[in-house]
């Protein structure tokens, strides 16, 4: 063979070295490309080998799915999924009257439908507000009953997943507009509005949610004239709204600050009023830039609703806890918490994934 390619002849294309291709190439590039990385890979492999097979054996191989009682179930070496089979309805719906449990089930479906509808950007705007208010009203009607032949159910019996969803959904639904007002208030040039917003935000942010829940449940009744009572669930709901609003307000303020001054000036010079300038020009941009922290707070609020357990409301975690106290089925902590944890995780993971998609999608069109 000649050293140089013949003039007019194309050199045959060569394959890259085998070590940079395929599975081996990928392993070398990603897992073993440096000494620390190689060590980390080995440690991770070791942990996987040590932890995963025993877990799988516990959860699947040795598990008992059919036991009729807790006593029988305890003889199994692995997980007692029969416990979940026996108790899932109680964990999901708690003490809601058994025959009426189709109502909270339907509420869950309504909320899921609302979430799905919210993902469709074509519905954003007025129709989405209608969907949320309508869905919320429908959910409350189903829970309360007292109309259309559905027996009335008091809020103390609203337990489990529907309660968690109600606290979270209404919490965010009402906290969000309040947060926008607070954020705009904090950036206002009017001293009274500004100071009130700052005072509110700093006061609420400086106090743990648990304290606010306690105050709402224990202290508030002391200040009310005797005879008046406010529903305990409503008090907790208001506490969650007020708490969430302070955090959301600070996030939205960050978004507002990221908008260049020129955007305000352009809107002003076109003669847009303050309200229209904010609604049409500033907020759409500000809110888009803060989607990741907003969703972070939504996820946090969703999980924080489990704190209502300390004022005696039985949300999803609360019903799981009480199912564990049954004399016959006592002590299946792992199973109960895994089950509940999985439900929380599904909702949070969905929110997180959707926000990532949304961020990509919104940025695609607007920036090069």
């Amino acid at each position, binding site marked *: 063979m000649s050293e140089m390619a013949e003039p007019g002849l194309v050199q045959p294309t060569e394959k890259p070295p085998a070590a940079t291709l395929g599975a081996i190439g990928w392993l070398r590039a990603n897992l073993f490309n440096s000494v620390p990385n190689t060590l980390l890979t080995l440690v991770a492999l070791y942990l996987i080998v040590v932890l995963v097979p025993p877990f799988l054996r516990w959860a699947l191989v040795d598990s008992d799915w059919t036991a009729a009682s807790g006593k029988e179930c305890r003889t199994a070496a692995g997980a007692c999924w029969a416990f979940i089979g026996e108790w899932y309805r109680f964990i999901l719906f708690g003490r809601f009257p058994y025959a009426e449990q189709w109502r909270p089930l339907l509420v869950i479906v309504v909320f899921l439908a609302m979430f799905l509808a919210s993902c469709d950007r074509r519905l954003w705007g007025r129709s989405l507000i209608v969907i949320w208010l309508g869905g919320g009203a429908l959910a409350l009607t189903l829970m309360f009953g007292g109309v259309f032949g559905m027996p009335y159910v008091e809020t103390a019996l609203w337990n489990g997943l529907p309660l968690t969803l109600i606290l979270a959904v209404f919490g965010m639904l009402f906290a969000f507009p309040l947060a926008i007002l607070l954020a705009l208030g904090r950036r206002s040039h009017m001293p009274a509005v500004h100071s009130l917003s700052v005072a509110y935000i700093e006061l609420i942010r400086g106090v743990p949610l648990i304290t606010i829940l306690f105050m709402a449940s224990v202290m508030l009744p002391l200040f009310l004239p005797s005879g008046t009572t406010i529903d305990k669930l409503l008090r907790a709901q208001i506490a969650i709204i007020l708490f969430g609003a302070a955090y959301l307000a600070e996030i939205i303020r960050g978004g507002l600050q990221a908008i260049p001054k020129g*955007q305000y*000036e352009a809107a*002003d*010079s*076109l*003669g847009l009023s303050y309200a229209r300038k904010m609604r049409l020009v500033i907020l759409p*941009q500000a809110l*888009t830039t803060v989607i990741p922290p907003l969703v972070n707070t939504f996820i946090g609020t969703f999980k924080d609703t489990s704190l209502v357990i300390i004022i005696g409301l039985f949300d999803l975690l609360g019903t799981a806890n009480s199912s564990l106290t049954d004399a016959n089925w006592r002590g299946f902590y792992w199973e109960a918490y895994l089950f509940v944890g999985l439900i929380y995780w599904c909702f949070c993971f969905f929110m997180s994934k959707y926000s990532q998609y949304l961020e990509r999608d919104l940025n695609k069109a607007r920036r*090069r």
Partner: protein
Amino acid sequence: MTSTATADRAETGKPMIELRAVHKWYGEFHVLKDISLQVGRGERVVVCGPSGSGKSTMIRCINRLEEHQKGQIIVDGIELTSDVKNIEAIRREVGMVFQQFNLFPHLTVLENLTLAPIWVRKMPKKEAEEAAMVYLERVKIPEQAGKYPGQLSGGQQQRVAIARSLCMKPQIMLFDEPTSALDPEMIKEVLDVMVGLAQDGMTMICVTHEMGFARTVADSMIFMDRGEIVEVATPQEFFANPKSERTKLFLSQILAH
């Protein structure tokens, strides 16, 4: 048709814009010193001067993006005070084009153009879109209507910004260094649009260093330095025969090459 009231108010002969002994301070710093100025209907005024001379601040006072602290500013018969009604009324009649374009990045070009006509002028959406397309034709980029500002070149963005202002059918256009942020090859396309506007009889105040443009369209030149109006003259006089030493120095610096 949309503004019979303003047409009645501004009889011919009365100035469209009048500044009477206007002063402004940024803290202790005296940015505008005793500025008096009259701009008639259809008059084209070019304002130049070294950076920091207060020229941008002056035209930004005319639509109240900056607040003056002393003196009077009267636009189309309405005096600018802290009355929000007056401010919004004046802003509807005064278009402004910025150095940094300031298009709304979350809206398409067409939506940028129709936003204010729909929400401020209460124009039906379809009518606003038709009008917007006429202006996009005029600035020669109708094919970009569906794109977002971030997908356009600087020159195209500035032309969209001009069209956006024109959609409000303003009586007066203010230009705040409209070509200073553009690459050299894009300056001409923007200036061409501005020359076209001037020929149609728009009342214009332009802060710019484009002296060729000033020669072509200006009825009068204003030279500002350190917050004062140093010289007002016709372009012929201004370039051939500047009176003040400061004007001479400035002209020698910008016309040196």
